Every structure is written in structure tokens, then in C-alpha cells.
């Protein structure tokens, strides 16, 4: 067991260490010294990344896009999930399936029609266009995830609230949501991570540096067949920090959320 964990840790952490080590080597050493430990440590790549590239702009854009998308996905996803799991209306099952199907359509098929939509909205080259676009995959995921969770919450709890005078919305906000925090945490985390990592739409819809997110900004550092490995590694490492922080903060709820529904009480 411990051996397995060790192998997994090495498997997972060595690439991260390699990124760190590369980011601390000089340009020449990156090509000439395939060593695990840099012989001469330099922070030059971090300096160049922070002060000679629009890295901070990319970072700010990524944070804004990911945070706004996550918040909207949670709101829309929760309302949709509640409707699907609790309300009786025609086409409910069909809608539930459609949500999953929507989530499964790959972005590579959608990017041209999406470009047309975003262009019609006048949001090309604008991070708001990305926020709108990212809702197309975060909302279905959130809806699907939260629907499953809501179905495991006894309906009697809400009925008791309704009897006590709550409206549906109040029942959702005061009764259902507080006990759904683990599911909310998972949804938030996945929405944030997916938005943070998204590449294709950002690449196609955004051209100006001032509007680029980190993933696209990073690839923009590549010049033809020349890779500035040092700055790219430094940027990758710094760019990975926000999702790591989010994971650390929400770890407790995430574990509970992922196991939700696995055992029915």
C-alpha cells in the first residue's frame, strides 16, 4: 500500500519538480544539463515572466473568467438541478438527458458555431465572451452533478419547510443548499478548474494580449519552433498556484461531495 502511494507520488510530483528545476536553470543549462538539481540557480525566468511579458494580465483575466464563470454556473446549475429533481413538468426527463448530452459535445466541434454566436454578440476579443462561452460546459456539469445530489436529499425536509410557510425558493436557499455544501464545493472546484484550464475557445476567440487568459498567453510565448522553456516553466508554476489554493481550501468538502450518495442512509 505504502509502496503504491510512493509510486503514485513520484509519478505525480516528478513532473512538477522538473518544471520547478527547469524554471530555476539558466537558458544554456536547460539545454546542456539534463540534471535533476540545477547547478546554478537563477530567478531570471521569473523576473522576465513577471516584468517582460503580460503574465500578470493573463493571470488577472484567468482569475476573473474562472471566478465569474464558477459563480454563474453554480447559480444556474443549482436552479436547474432543483427544477429537474423536484418540480414536475412536461419534458423534465428529456431536459435532464439533454443536459448530459450537451456536456458531452466536444469543444472542437462547437468552436466554429460558437465563434459565430460570440461574434454576433460582439464579444470577440473580450473576456466576457469567454465567460458566456464557458457557461455552455460548466452549467450542464453543475446541473448534472447537483441534480444527483438533490435526489438524495429527503423531500420531506422541504415539505416540512413548505408547511412552515417557506416558498420554494426559500426552501431551496434555507434548507436544501446548506446541506448541499459538499456538492457545491465539488461543482465550484470543477467549474473553476475547467474554466482555468480551458484552451480552445480562449485561443479562437481572443487575440489581444490584454484579453488573453493564462493558457493562451502561455502558448503565445512560443515563437515558431523556438520554445522559451525557462519563462514557460516559471509561468506554468505560477499559473498553477490559484487552482492549487482553491483545492487546498475546499479539500474537506470536496471529499465529502465526491462520496455523496455512495451510501444511502
Amino acid at each position, binding site marked *: 500500500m505504502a509502496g503504491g502511494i510512493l509510486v503514485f507520488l513520484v509519478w505525480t510530483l516528478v513532473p512538477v519538480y522538473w518544471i520547478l528545476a527547469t524554471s530555476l536553470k539558466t*537558458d*544554456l543549462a536547460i*539545454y*546542456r544539463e539534463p540534471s535533476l538539481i540545477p547547478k546554478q540557480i537563477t530567478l531570471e525566468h521569473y523576473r522576465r515572466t513577471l516584468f517582460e511579458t503580460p503574465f500578470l494580465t493573463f493571470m*488577472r*483575466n484567468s482569475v*476573473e*473568467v474562472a471566478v*465569474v464563470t464558477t*459563480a*454563474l454556473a453554480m*447559480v*444556474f446549475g443549482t*436552479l436547474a438541478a*432543483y*427544477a429537474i429533481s423536484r*418540480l414536475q*413538468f412536461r419534458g423534465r426527463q428529456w431536459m435532464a438527458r439533454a443536459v448530459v448530452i450537451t456536456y458531452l459535445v466536444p469543444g472542437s466541434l462547437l*468552436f*466554429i458555431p460558437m*465563434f*459565430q454566436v460570440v*461574434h454576433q*454578440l*460582439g*464579444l*470577440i*476579443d*473580450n*473576456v*466576457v465572451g469567454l*465567460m*458566456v462561452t464557458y457557461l455552455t460546459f460548466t452549467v450542464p456539469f453543475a446541473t448534472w452533478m447537483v441534480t444527483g445530489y438533490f435526489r438524495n436529499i429527503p423531500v420531506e425536509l422541504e415539505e416540512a419547510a*413548505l408547511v412552515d410557510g417557506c*416558498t*420554494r*425558493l426559500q426552501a*431551496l436557499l434555507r434548507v436544501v443548499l446548506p446541506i448541499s455544501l459538499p456538492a457545491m464545493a465539488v461543482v465550484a472546484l470543477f467549474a473553476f478548474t475547467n474554466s482555468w484550464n480551458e484552451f480552445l475557445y480562449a*485561443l*479562437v476567440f481572443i*487575440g*489581444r494580449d*490584454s*484579453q488573453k487568459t493564462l493558457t*493562451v498567453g502561455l*502558448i*503565445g510565448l*512560443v*515563437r*515558431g*519552433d*523556438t*520554445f522559451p522553456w525557462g519563462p514557460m516553466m516559471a509561468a506554468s508554476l505560477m499559473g498553477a498556484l490559484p487552482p492549487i489554493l482553491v483545492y487546498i481550501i475546499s479539500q474537506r468538502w470536496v471529499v465529502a461531495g465526491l462520496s455523496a450518495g455512495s451510501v444511502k442512509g
Partner: protein
Amino acid sequence: MSSDKRTRLTTRRQFLGAAGLGLIGLTALGACAPAAPPTPTPAPKPTEAPKPAATSAPAVAPTPTVAAAKPTEAPKPTAAPAASPTAAAAAKPAAGSGKLVIWGYQSFTPEGDKLLGEQMQQFGKDNNQQVEYVPVENAVFPQKLAAAVEAKAPPDVDMFTSPDRALYWQSRNQLVDLTDVWNSVSKQAGGFFESVLEVYKADGKYWAIPFETDCSPMFTRLDLMEKATGKREPPKTMDELYEVSKKIVNPPSMYPIGITLGRVPDTVGMMLNLIWCDGGAYVDKDGKKPAIKSDGTLTAVKRVQLWWKDKLIPPDSPTWDDTGNNNAYQSKQVAFVINPPSIYDWLQKNDKELLNNTTMAPLPAGKSGSFQGSGSWSWSIFKDSKNVDMGKALITYLMKPDNLQAVYEKVGGRWYPVYKDLKSKEYWTSRPHFKYYPDMIANGRAISWPAAPGAQLMQAIGEVQTNNVLADMIQGVLIKNKTPEQAVDEAQKAMEDTFKKYGLG
């Protein structure tokens, strides 16, 4: 029961109403996200764009006055534009003017992109025209352009990295005829190199204006040559290359022949060069039929097979992408690579010693001689542009020899002049690494050689290149253990299938 049902119905409505309101509110919130620029530029080309001349006039009509208009009188941003980008951006466009949007591939240095952008801003300032230059990441440019064209929102002016890409869009009736611009700029500074003269022509008209030329010389480690042969000279024949490589090879730290063998453009270009050197070609003289099945191709394939068997090529080369040979040469793991001069720029910045021990030589001669391709990048204008005349004027301005030379110098040698006289500029003559370049460019072959380039032919070959037919051919021999004859037969078949789609073959 009925009362309960009524209550439920009411709350559902309330619920849906609240959800709708929330949705509207949140959408508004999203739209007000702080990242939105103060003046977002949603529509690339407002309809009320300025029309410097009669835009209603057919694009074919020569408009030399327009093409050569203001930029000529403009303050010349030769070595460096006089106006700073900020100042240029502050210039107010004429009332009701639209933005001129230009998409370019990232050059090979940020400085090159910056200067190109500054020149465009200078042009905009001189012409009271709002201009936006967007350097696009190279790897995804085609997808991005395809999406924009599909949405009828292509850039006004667009950069292409090979003639077949320009002719591809021309064949889809997307480009503006640039014959008038061609006529006004092609004779400047000694005129264009011959290698670009015919490749942008289709239906008797020119559809793109080349602004640089390039080729893939053989980077050669002169110090290792000296150690092996006593002379600091590149190998002159393929046989010599083979012999000297056998002396240099020292696995695992040195596999001298650093050719790329992955399914990438570098492999395709390198294989075509080797095939030419041994007397083969993609097509026959008329350009009607694929002719990759030839003794020349077979010789070239067998040659690479021999290098591979003798372990003169790095064993991981079939997994390389286009950066593989750069990395290998820069890390001193190989002695020879065939590549455009992006390596030269890296050496200049990082390793003067290796630079001094390097030359960029013509390919060693095979059975037929020493030949290599010469490519070029170009500007075109999309038909959906509302700024055709302004676009033409911009291209004319960018094509001013001094403007071009200033950009070349910032791109670190990756772009070589398209005008013959510019090769005499001090920048080029003072760099011995480029001493073979004028001849290599002048004698550079188009991919359609020996046939004259034609729109259909260039597109067909373009597709063959995109499909990595030559890379598959050599990988078939080295990785899948096919015989050279089998692999060449399959390449011929793949080409014939592609050519049929274009009414050729």
C-alpha cells in the same frame, strides 16, 4: 389536496420568476465584468468603415494612386518608427471610420512583432485610420482563421506562411486580387527574388504579396568538421556527410545527423529537399501527375535508411516535433540539422561560442546536385473586408524596403529579404553565417518543381504536405519495417488520391 396543488403551482411560478430574474441579473453582472476593456472592440469591422477610394470599384481595377498614396509621404518609420505606440494609438480616426484589423503569425521574436505593430500604427496615424495588429499563435492560426471566415468576420489583412495557404483561400473565392499592389511594389529595390515571382499567381492575377523569403540551410558544426576532416568546411556531398558522420558519431551523446522524422512539417520539408538532391520531385514536368515514385525518391529514402541503420540519426527523432532538431542542435547533441535560422537567433542570444563554430550551408549534393526549397510569407486581403483600399495602402507601406529591412533585423535573421538589393545591406553582409543565402534563395525551388506553380497544383501539394505523406513514407521504412519500394508506392498512391480531388492525376 386541491389547495395543496394550488400552493405548489403558485410556488413553482414564483420559483421560475425568481430564477428568470436571477438569470437576467447575473448576465448583466457578467457583462459588467471588470476585465471588459473601457472601449471593447466587439465588431472587427463596423460597416461604416472609411473608404479611402471608391470601394465600390471592382477590386481588380488598378488603383495605383490609392496603393501608393499617403504612406509614401508619411514620416518614414524606417529603423524605428518615430511615434511611440502609445502616441500612435492616440491618433483619432476619422469620424465614422472602421478599424483595419490585421492578423499575422507571430514572428520569431517579440521585437519583430512589436516593430511590425508599430509600423502599422504609424501608417494608421498618417492616414487617420484606426489599425489593430493581432499576432496570432502559429499553431492555431488556421483554425482561428477558419472560424473567423465561417463567421464572415475575417481580418481585413492576413498573413500567410506559404503560397499554397493563400491560394487555398483564393480558390474559395475569399481573397481580393492584389495585382495592382504587386505591380507597384514588386520592382522596388532590385525587384523580388525569382523564387516568389510565380507562386502567388492564379488565373493571371496575384493574390498575395510576399514580404520575406526563407529557406532551410544545413546548420553545421564546424568545430566537429575540423576535428574529423582537418577543415572548417561543411560537407559538400551526401557521401561526404555520411563519411564524416561516421567519424563524429558517439552514442548516446552525439548522433550527428539531426534530421526530424516525426509527422511534422520539418520532416516533410527535409525529405523533399533530400529527394530533390537525388533527382526526385513531387510531380512531373506538366504538374498534372504525382511523380514521387521515382529512382530519385528511392535513393533518398534508402540514404536515410542507411543513416538510421548506422545510428547516425538520434533514435528519438521519429518522435520529434518541429522543435526537436532545434533542441538537439542547441544542446550540442547533433552536428547537422536542416532548419530555418531560428536556431541562429537562439545562438546569437545564448551561445556565441557555438555560433562561431556554426555555419548555415547549402545541402550537400546528392546524385542530382544540391537543391532546397525557398519559401515566403505574404500578405493578403479578405473579400469581406470593408477596408480593401486601406488594406492595400497598408501593404504597400509595409513593403517599403526600409520598413521591411528594419523588421528583418528584429526577427533575428529568420526572415530574409524578398527584394534582391536588400541582401547587400550591412546587416546581412556583416554576418558570415548568411553568406550562402543569396544563392540558396535565388536558386530555391517551389514545392511544385519541376512544374510551374498553379493554383490547383499548389493546393493539391499543400494537402499532400498537410497530410504528412513524406513523413509517413520515411516512418514506414524506419519504424514499420516496410521496404523503401513499398513505402514509395504508398506515397505515390496517397498523392494520386489527393490529386484526384483537385481534378489532377
